[in-house]
C-alpha cells in the first residue's frame, strides 16, 4: 500500500543546517547563550538545528550538562 504523506510532528521541517562556527568553546556560565540551544522541555537541540560542527556541538553539550549538574538548567522531563 502506498504510504500516505506523513502528518503531524514528523512532518515538520527542520531549519536548514547553516554551518555555524563558534569562536571559543561554550561556557557553562553563559546561560543566555545555552538557553538558545534548548528545546521547550530543556532538550539539547540537535546538530541539524544548531548548525554546529562536531567539535562545537560537543562543547555545547558539555556546557549544558555542566549547567544541569549545578541546577542552573533543568534536566529533560
Amino acid at each position, binding site marked *: 500500500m502506498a504510504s500516505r504523506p506523513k502528518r503531524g510532528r514528523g512532518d515538520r521541517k527542520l*531549519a536548514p543546517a*547553516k554551518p*555555524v562556527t563558534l569562536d571559543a568553546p561554550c561556557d*557553562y*556560565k553563559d*546561560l*543566555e547563550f545555552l*538557553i*538558545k*540551544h*534548548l528545546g*521547550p522541555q530543556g532538550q539539547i*537541540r540537535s546538530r541539524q*538545528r*544548531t*548548525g554546529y560542527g562536531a567539535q562545537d556541538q560537543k562543547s555545547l553539550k558539555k556546557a549544558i550538562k*555542566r549547567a*544541569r*549538574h*549545578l*541546577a*542552573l*538548567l*533543568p*534536566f529533560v*522531563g
Partner: protein
Amino acid sequence: MAQIYEGMFVLDNEVVRAGWDAAKQQVTGLIEKHGGEVKTARHWGERKLAYKINNRSRATFLLSFFTMPGDNIPAFTRDLEINETVMRYLQLQVDELPEGEEAEAAKETGGEFSVPEPPRDEVGTYTLWGDEEEESARRDGRDGRKTSSSSDDKAESKDDDAKGESKDADKAESKDDAKAESTDSTETEEKQEA
C-alpha cells in the same frame, strides 16, 4: 607550575544567611587545607534552582579559581562531599585565569561590598533566566534587542515574528506574558509528577 582549577560551589543558603564571609571561608579554608592557593573567590549570584538539591530550592553560588597539586584533588573532593555547606560542586581544569576575573573578585575585598540576605526558600519561581526580576528586565529589553541570524532556535524566530507583527509594544509584551505563564504551569505539573 601547579595546575589552575575553576571551581563552582553551590552553597546552602542557611549558612550564607549567617554570614557570607564565613560561608566563603568554609570553601577557601578547604582549598588551603589541601595545599591549594586561592587566586580568586567571589559571589556568583543567588538564584532559584532548576530542581531541588538537599530539599533546598534556592542556593548561592561561589566561583573560585585556585591552584592545587594534582595529587591532593581526590582528598579535596572527598572533603567537599562530606561538607554539608557545599551542596554541589564543579571543578574544571583551566589554562589560565580569565580576564577580568581578578577585578571582579577584588570588588568583594573592598569595604562596601555586602551580600544581601538570601530570600526564603519558597520565594520566586525558576525561570531559565534565574530570577524573576532579571526575566522581566529581559522581557522589557527584548524589543530593542538585536537578533542574531545564526540562531535557528524556534523561540528566537517567534520573537522575531512578534517584533515584526506590530510596533505596538504592549501587544508584544502581553504575548510574552502569556508565554511565561504557560511555562510556569508546565513546571508545576512537572513538580507534581515528581
